[in-house]
């Protein structure tokens, strides 16, 4: 199969194109999962445990059941059994993908505050909510562990983490020897607060049974993952479960895995024999879809006088749930970032009374690279070296953890272009010396990196071309803000040689060809590759038909020498002498033609390491009297390989960089160690960047060609934008003030020298 698109066709791919669902989203026509109401729909409301550990000793549902409109109260006392045990498995694997190896309401045990202990179903949302308040749940509380200080003594070193996919300890060389060779050693300790995703659309599921078949509108990154998980837990054939998610209101990892609520919605719907809508409340979102765990990093960096790194030691301590050995992989990419011969990375966990943490945008990379990149900044300061220069000194052409060559990199260009566009070299040589009015002003930079993950099975798409010249491209995937719909249109159009405006993208439905959950920044590349494969197959099918048809001007032409553009096929090297697709279809009495394409991602043993690299730059102003940090401007240069849609790719990278503002300065979910509950589980109390916090952001691309990762050479842009952004900001705060803040977020209190996170 020919996979190199002709230049004329390739022009479709990469150009900025409006979102496929733009009109639907600005008119209110786009429907999200809580916005379907089949006739007779009733409402389920979850009731969360009020203690962090112990037992439910009684559920008195009498008042709730007597309350107007109430149809059912479900709890461990009457919930039907599951057909299978839930097992944590990342949804990229393409199988059932429970977010934790636990399902609530199966027995009386309470493992974490907010764990669903009951579900009330009523005819209206208000009545269900009211009855949920009338439910009298009594508990016997036991001592709990929720915070680092409570769990530190019980920490253990897990054999494997991340659902068993990664080892609990990594390393190369001899760190002690490397440190002995070092002229300068930087040692740091960082405490990073827990974070919650807070997509603006809370998770929700609407479930309906019809003749034994189940339809679920689920707010998910992977309709296929929801289908497989719900089917497995309820003991249904997957073919009998249809999951729809044409519009999803943001996720950032919170909807990457499948949690209990779509399953509970289906169980409730079966119980009351009516469609059930279960919308998780904002407060419940803090205990329903995972979180980025609180973490402590101890980091040691050794270097020679010329900046060459000799050793890196990176230990992380974090709480996990009672059920799973989960910690976000914070150590892997820092270990692979620079040419450093000696490295040791160790995860330590302790069991805590929280749910299993989950993926959150750049899971591990955002935290781990904050640690590495702020330590690099400290090292540069110690050595009296420019931070960009220090990074160039340690640039690695091969992956230092495996010795394999990077499939593409482009990082040197990212540094160079970023530094020039940002005006990096104009920065004050001494920290804490530049002012603008009463503001202290500083700049900082950091490297960005995000691995290329690959789906673990074939990714499929269908492309259909109609006799009127219009086409459709279909996959099961969801668009939760990635803009994958527009990319599907562009890629199908390019491979077919028609205009992108002629192509309609259909997605968000398990009845369409199967793709895995769009997670790990792998979604768009995988889906685009599937569409590309299908559309290329369709073009070849049409060419084959034409060259075999005596009535075609292309009759007898070598199919390998036929090009397509503008809806026409023609002999290579000119656009004359061919014919339109529509002519062939009409002549052959075909209303349409279609092809299914399956793209097999390359395996892990392809002889290459793959990641997207970038460079981040930020300028901040610090008001020393008020403790305020304002980010004044940001610039990111990234090398994500082929950019499929410059418009949506830029937006995703920009959004990621602005996540760095939250990560650096605002976002923290604080655990109340006494009650074992999150103390600020609301959007008013969990601080998120608002418009006035968001500076202008410049996103640039360094062009690299990647012939390895997929036929389009696209490496993914969803997450790398956040990596290093918080480090660049923290480094800028140091440059502005001369003071180093190692904990996140850098709060006003810390800048004022009070409370948590204050440092010298």
């Amino acid at each position, binding site marked *: 199969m020919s996979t190199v698109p002709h230049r004329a066709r390739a022009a479709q791919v990469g150009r900025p194109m409006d979102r496929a669902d733009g009109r639907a989203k*600005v008119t209110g026509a786009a429907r999200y999962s809580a916005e379907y109401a089949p006739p007779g729909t009733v409402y389920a409301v979850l009731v969360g445990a009020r203690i962090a550990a112990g037992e439910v000793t009684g559920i008195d549902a009498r008042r709730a059941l007597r309350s107007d409109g109430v149809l059912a109260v479900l709890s461990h006392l009457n919930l039907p059994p599951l057909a299978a045990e839930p097992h944590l498995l990342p949804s990229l694997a393409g199988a059932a993908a429970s977010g934790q190896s636990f399902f609530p309401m199966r027995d009386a045990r309470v493992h974490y505050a907010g764990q669903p202990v009951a579900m009330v179903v009523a005819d209206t949302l208000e009545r269900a909510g009211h009855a949920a308040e009338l439910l009298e749940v009594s508990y016997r509380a036991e001592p709990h562990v929720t915070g680092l200080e409570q769990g530190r003594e019980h920490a253990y070193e897990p054999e494997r983490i991340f659902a068993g996919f990664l080892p609990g300890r990594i390393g190369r060389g001899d760190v002690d020897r490397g440190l002995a060779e070092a002229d300068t050693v930087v040692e740091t300790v960082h405490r990073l607060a827990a974070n919650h995703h807070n997509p*603006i659309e809370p998770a929700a599921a609407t479930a309906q049974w019809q003749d034994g078949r189940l339809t679920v509108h689920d707010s998910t990154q992977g309709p296929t993952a929801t289908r497989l998980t719900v089917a497995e837990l309820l003991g249904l054939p997957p073919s009998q479960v249809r999951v729809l998610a044409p519009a999803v209101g943001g996720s950032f990892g919170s909807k990457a895995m499948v949690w209990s609520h779509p399953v509970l919605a289906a169980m409730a719907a079966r119980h009351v024999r009516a469609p059930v809508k279960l919308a998780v409340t904002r407060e419940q979102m803090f205990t329903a879809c995972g979180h980025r765990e609180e973490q402590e990093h101890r980091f040691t960096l050794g270097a020679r006088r010329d900046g060459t790194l000799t050793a890196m030691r990176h230990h992380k301590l974090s709480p996990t749930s009672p059920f799973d050995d989960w910690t976000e992989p914070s150590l892997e990419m820092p270990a692979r970032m620079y040419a450093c011969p000696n490295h040791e990375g160790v995860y330590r966990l302790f069991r805590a009374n929280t749910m299993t943490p989950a993926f959150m945008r750049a899971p591990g990379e955002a935290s781990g690279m904050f640690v590495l990149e702020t330590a690099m900044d400290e090292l540069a300061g110690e050595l009296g070296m420019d931070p960009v220069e220090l990074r160039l000194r340690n640039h690695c052409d091969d992956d230092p953890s495996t010795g394999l060559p990077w499939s593409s990199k482009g990082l040197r260009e990212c540094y160079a272009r970023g530094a020039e566009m940002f005006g990096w070299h104009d920065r004050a040589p001494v920290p804490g010396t530049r002012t603008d009015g009463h503001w202290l002003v500083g700049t900082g930079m950091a490297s960005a990196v995000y691995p290329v993950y690959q789906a673990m099975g074939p990714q499929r798409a269908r492309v259909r071309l109609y006799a009127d010249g219009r086409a459709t491209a279909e996959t099961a995937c969801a668009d939760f803000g990635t803009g994958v719909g527009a990319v599907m249109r562009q890629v199908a159009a390019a491979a077919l040689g028609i205009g992108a405006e002629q192509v309609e993208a259909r997605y968000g439905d398990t009845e369409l060809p199967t793709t895995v959950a769009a997670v790990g920044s792998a979604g768009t590349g995988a889906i685009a590759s599937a569409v590309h494969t299908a559309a290329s197959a369709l073009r070849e099918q049409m060419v084959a038909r034409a060259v075999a048809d005596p009535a075609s001007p292309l009759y007898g032409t070598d199919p390998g020498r036929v090009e397509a553009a503008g809806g026409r096929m023609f002999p290579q090297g000119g656009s004359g002498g061919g014919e339109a697709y529509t002519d062939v279809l009409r002549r052959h009495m075909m209303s349409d033609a279609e092809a299914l394409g399956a793209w097999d991602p390359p395996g892990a043993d392809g002889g290459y390491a793959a990641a997207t690299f970038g460079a981040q730059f930020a300028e901040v102003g610090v008001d020393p009297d008020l403790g305020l940090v304002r980010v004044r401007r940001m610039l990111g240069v990234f090398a994500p390989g082929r950019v499929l849609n410059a418009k949506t790719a830029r937006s995703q990278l920009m959004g990621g960089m602005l996540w760095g503002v939250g990560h650096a300065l605002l976002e923290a979910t604080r655990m109340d160690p006494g009650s074992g509950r999150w103390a600020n589980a609301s959007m008013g109390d969990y601080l998120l960047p608002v418009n006035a916090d968001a500076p*202008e952001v410049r996103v640039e691309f360094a062009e690299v060609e990647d012939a390895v990762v997929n036929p389009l050479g696209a490496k993914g842009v969803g997450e790398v934008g956040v990596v290093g952004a918080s480090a660049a900001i923290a480094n800028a705060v140091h440059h502005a003030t001369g003071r180093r803040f190692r904990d996140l977020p850098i709060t006003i209190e810390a800048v004022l020298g009070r409370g948590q996170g204050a440092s010298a």
Partner: protein
Amino acid sequence: MTRQTSRPRLPSQARREGREGTRPPEAGPGEVEIALTVNGTRRTVRVEPRVSLLDALRERLGVTGPKKGCDQGACGACTVLVEGRRVLGCLTLAITCEGRPVTTVEGLADGDRLHPVQEAFIANDAFQCGYCTPGQLMSAVALLEEGRAGDDAEIAEWMSGNICRCAAYPNIRAAVRQVRDARAEGEGGR
């Protein structure tokens, strides 16, 4: 600003009584029928007094453009216009809106012709997941009407009641700027 009263005043009831200031008859706790004028269309709906305008629209009238991001007045996704003014649908009781025109995102376009702010949002890629977008659009429309889009700082400040977790903020500002400038040009040219 208002009298402390445990019962909401229904404008229509006040009208029926023909005298301002008379205590309205009790409504609730059961359902009452009210008439809401949504995007120019009068619709009747039965709601308990505790039902928010947002839930009346989304769950009872099938008007799902206004979004529920928090149900606590913190995110702005539920922003709609009542009598042309921005309100948070989640913090407004439906029965207090009787007789007051409600405009939602569905009411911005003129048939197939998008409102200039809608067009500008698409052109500037001022959203990703789109879930905050109906609220952003209503706020943007109102702040432009109010003349509060003088410069970027002012736009940012007045748009800060609408959280966008996708962080499309710079593009939202660009969209508002574009409409502001187009209007200024239009007026200048006249």
